[in-house]
């Protein structure tokens, strides 16, 4: 009779079978009989089939799923209840009323005729409960909301109606099968309903966040579901809601003292709203942090975290968000990494949202991260620094302010002294003055607070903090690279199989140094230059550049070091023109080591542009040496590189008139040759190569180059000596020339196979210029290996085919010869046969 009891029973495992009451024991009343007669078919089906199905279920307990089991038990209990209802004498079931009602907390209430109190009780309780909730919520339901709620209730009722209908439908002969189907269906339905509920809650929150704030908790509850899809949906919908309703200020929870104070209704409402929002937000973040560690949810969680951080960098708990973002910034998963990087970048670029505090924190965190990982991270994680921006005029304006202040002070002093000279006229006047100044100060303070102009000094401080963190990271990376290089020779002497420590962060670090070169403190400059010099030389002891260590920095990286050094120097001129002799020496040697396929032509072109073309003064010897070397090597470079080299040569020759003696056919260089009477092509120092004593015979060869642009350029250069001095300064830079030609190369010869191969390489190079030097170097070397392997296999196949052909032709030949021989034999026989015949005939 107690339906609740039945429901409780279902929790106990294993459940009791419905009491099998022998038919004799049942007291059958007349009414009962009549009822059974009326509903014979129905009842008979029940009595015959139910036990079977139940026994089946009981036997299947072992391998069935828990959810399914639970449902089955529920059904069973329901069925048995129905059965009892039918058998019990006093029960009159109203069909319509028999539909159970599901309350918001998921309990099923059955309306029956016998228990008249219950149906009244159930809804009543519900209502009171709701009222209580409403009271708790400290607000009254608005009309619209009431309507919405009513609608929702109705919908739920309908749903339950469907449920029951299904239950009834299911009570057919194939109940066992249908039960399973139904389990699936209910699962789907639950999923659907949850989804719908999420949507409804979210919608309600978005339409009126102030009054519906408690729905947030429900949503959070849903997002703790066991179904991963529901969890994901919950997280994402919560994200959408939070993105919309998080206020534009930081919420400060009221202190206890404040809580004790009496406040107006609106304030209390507001406080409730804020505290709920904050607590749910906190719970949501905790959930996100927990899920972020699980691989299944990692992507969603990180996405949510990043979106939240991007949308509300000013809000509470920013630290934990930032922490999670930075933690994932060098993730192996590319999607996650991209999301994190873009978030951090947007943090850096939209500083107005959070006033720069988040920038400082993020940079600090990244710096710590780099330190913790010992510089073994993905280059993206440091590349985000490139989107930082610093305002230089901040300092200037501040200085101006200070100057002005000083002036004021002086004025004041003078005034004061004047005033002191005069006798105090009267106190009233003085006090009035004080009052005026006081009010003025107050007004100023108010104005400052209201105008939202960021405090200059504060901003400056933040900027300097950011800068110091950035440079700390950069210097750490440089140092780490240095150490790894220094450690290598020793490792080599010990064992060749020493673990190859890569330096993935070097490329973005160098890029960043180039970009922020003008902000480096002069005190660091010396150290920085030394580091770069050692890196550019490629070995730990700069004295012996010829010593080769196999795992040195690649040529591109070393070129990049030189470029950065030049950039740093150029940006910190301070009216002092410093000549970076050592770096030019490195460049001079690196040009020889450059390989068109392996290294990036872009970098070489940039180096030529920055180190040779942009530099105004050069020693004659050095310039001549560079001209000679570039001309020589442009004979063996690919056309884009040689074009870049020739543009540089032209540029140098235009600027240095004396070097044009190279163009004259006068071996020995005449008087300008200096103390070195002969050209030494293997010299490592451009100043001592004696290039002025040589002749640029390469131009003559280059003017017969297959590429028309190069040949015209070469002949143009060689005619420079004859032409007058006022040649048009060529505007094209080596970089531009390189780009043009490499593009042209890609476009022009798509057919011929050898060039195609070249193209392919170049394409990979060009496409991969931005990400990192190291990786491309690796890929290109990998490419080479692969190529070699492929070519090898190709050749073996070709060889096999040739061999096969040869063998087959031999076989054919032998077969043919055999055939011929047989024919010959046959003919011989035939010839002999007639002869024998003839002889026989003759006989």
């Amino acid at each position, binding site marked *: 009779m107690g339906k609740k009891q039945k429901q409780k029973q279902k929790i106990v495992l294993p459940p009791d079978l419905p009491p099998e009451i022998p038919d004799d024991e049942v007291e059958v009343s007349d009414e009962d009989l009549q009822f059974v007669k009326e509903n014979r078919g129905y009842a008979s089906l029940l009595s015959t089939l139910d036990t079977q199905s139940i026994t089946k279920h009981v036997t299947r307990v072992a391998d069935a799923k828990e959810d399914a089991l639970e449902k089955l038990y529920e059904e069973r209990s329901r069925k048995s209840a129905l059965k009892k209802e039918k058998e019990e004498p006093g029960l009159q079931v109203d069909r319509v009323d028999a539909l159970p009602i599901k309350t918001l907390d998921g309990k099923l209430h059955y309306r029956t005729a016998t228990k008249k109190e219950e149906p009244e009780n159930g809804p009543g309780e519900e209502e009171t409960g709701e009222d209580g909730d409403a009271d708790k919520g400290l607000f009254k339901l608005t009309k619209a909301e009431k309507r919405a709620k009513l609608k929702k209730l109705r919908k739920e009722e309908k749903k339950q109606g469907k449920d029951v209908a299904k239950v009834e439908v299911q009570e057919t002969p194939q109940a066992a099968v249908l039960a399973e189907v139904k389990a699936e269906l209910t699962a789907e339905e639950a999923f659907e309903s949850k989804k719908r509920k999420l949507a409804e809650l979210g919608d309600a929150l978005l339409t009126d966040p102030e009054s519906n704030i408690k729905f947030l908790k429900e949503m959070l509850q849903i997002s703790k579901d066991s179904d991963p899809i529901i969890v994901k949906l919950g997280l994402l919908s919560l994200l959408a809601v939070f993105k919309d309703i998080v206020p534009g200020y930081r919420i400060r929870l009221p202190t206890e003292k404040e809580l004790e104070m009496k406040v107006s209704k609106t304030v209390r409402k507001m406080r409730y709203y804020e505290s709920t929002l904050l607590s749910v937000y906190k719970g949501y973040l905790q959930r996100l942090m927990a899920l972020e560690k699980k691989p299944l949810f990692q992507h969603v969680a990180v996405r949510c975290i990043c979106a939240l951080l991007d949308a509300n960098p000013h809000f509470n708990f920013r630290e934990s968000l930032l922490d999670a973002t930075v933690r994932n910034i060098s993730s192996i998963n590319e999607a996650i990494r991209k999301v994190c990087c873009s978030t951090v970048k947007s943090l850096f670029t939209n500083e107005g949202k959070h006033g720069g505090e988040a920038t400082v924190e993020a940079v600090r965190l990244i710096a710590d991260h780099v330190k913790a990982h010992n510089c073994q991270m993905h280059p993206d994680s440091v590349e985000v620094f490139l989107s930082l921006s610093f305002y230089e005029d901040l300092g200037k304006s501040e200085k101006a302010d200070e100057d002005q202040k000083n002036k004021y002070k002086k004025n004041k002093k003078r005034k004061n002294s004047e005033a002191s000279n005069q006798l105090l006229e009267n106190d009233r006047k003085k006090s009035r003055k004080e009052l005026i100044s006081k009010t003025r100060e107050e007004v100023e303070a108010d104005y400052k607070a209201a105008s939202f102009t960021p405090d200059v000094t504060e901003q400056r401080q933040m900027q300097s903090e950011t800068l110091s963190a950035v440079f700390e990271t950069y210097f750490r990376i440089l140092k780490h690279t240095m150490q790894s290089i220094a450690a290598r020779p020793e490792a080599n002497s010990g064992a060749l199989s020493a673990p190859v420590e890569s330096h993935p962060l070097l490329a973005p670090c160098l890029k960043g140094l180039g970009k922020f070169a003008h902000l480096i403190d002069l005190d660091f400059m010396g150290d920085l230059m030394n580091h770069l010099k050692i890196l550019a030389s490629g070995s730990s002891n700069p004295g012996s550049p010829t010593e080769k260590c196999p795992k040195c920095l690649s040529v591109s990286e070393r070129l990049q070091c030189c470029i950065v050094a030049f950039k740093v*120097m150029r940006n910190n001129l301070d009216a002092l023109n410093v000549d970076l002799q*050592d770096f030019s020496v490195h460049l001079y040697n690196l040009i020889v080591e450059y390989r068109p396929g392996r290294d990036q032509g872009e970098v070489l072109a940039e180096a030529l542009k920055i180190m040779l073309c942009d530099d105004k003064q050069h020693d004659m010897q050095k310039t001549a040496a560079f001209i000679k070397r570039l001309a020589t090597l442009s004979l063996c470079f690919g056309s884009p590189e040689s074009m870049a080299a020739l543009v540089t040569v032209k540029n140098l020759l235009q600027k240095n008139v004396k070097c044009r003696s190279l163009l004259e056919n006068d071996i020995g260089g005449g008087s300008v040759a200096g103390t070195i009477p002969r050209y030494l092509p293997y010299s490592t120092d451009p100043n001592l190569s004696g290039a002025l004593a040589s002749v640029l015979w390469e131009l003559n060869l280059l003017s017969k180059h297959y590429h028309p642009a190069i040949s015209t350029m070469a002949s143009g250069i060689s005619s420079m000596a004859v032409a007058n001095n006022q040649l048009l300064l060529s505007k094209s830079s080596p970089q531009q020339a390189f780009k043009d030609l490499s593009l042209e190369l890609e476009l022009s010869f798509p057919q011929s196979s050898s060039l195609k191969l070249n193209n392919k390489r170049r394409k990979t190079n060009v496409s991969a210029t931005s990400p990192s030097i190291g990786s491309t170097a690796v890929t290109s070397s990998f490419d080479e290996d692969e190529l070699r392997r492929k070519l090898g296999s190709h050749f073996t196949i070709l060889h096999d085919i040739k061999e096969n052909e040869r063998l087959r032709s031999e076989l054919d030949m032998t077969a043919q010869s055999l055939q011929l021989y047989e024919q010959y034999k046959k003919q011989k026989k035939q010839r002999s046969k007639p002869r024998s015949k003839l002889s026989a005939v003759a006989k």
Partner: protein
Amino acid sequence: MRPLDEKETTVVFEKLFKFVGNNLKNIVENPSHEGPDSTPGRYCFRLHKNKIYYSSESIVKRATNVSRSNLVSVGTCIGKYTHAGNFHLTVQALSLLASNAKHKVWLKPQSEMGFLYGNHVLKSAIGRITENIAPGDGVVVFSMSDVPLGFGVAAKSTQDCRKLDPNAIVVLHQADLGEYLRMEDDL
């Protein structure tokens, strides 16, 4: 005329090393094409009457025919011993130093004259400077068109030069081309 002894050699080489650094090797090992010999010989250092000469071996060999009192000079004079026994480089060594110089300073055209009159190089006069100069290093002074003008000793490092007062001394004068006129008799 005699070869330098151990002590003299170290003194001379130390002095040269300040200016040319590792390029000292080039100075010593360069093949010489001077003299009538067909095969290139070497350069060597000789001491004659307090002066140090840098000369090719073939010329030195032939100079032995001249008596000590009659021999005025052989090869290039690069320095001399003072009465106090110190070694000084003289302006004639300039071309040798300039072609192997490690540290260089280029002067602005308007301040070349000041240096050629025997004054120190001021910060305001510098048009260009190589990096990594330490105080005490030997510095060769050039004009902006790469003509060697003289040499001296660095008073300040390159780093310090940046923040220096325009009138501060960067290079202390040792020798300049003007000496060919001013001290014609002494050289």
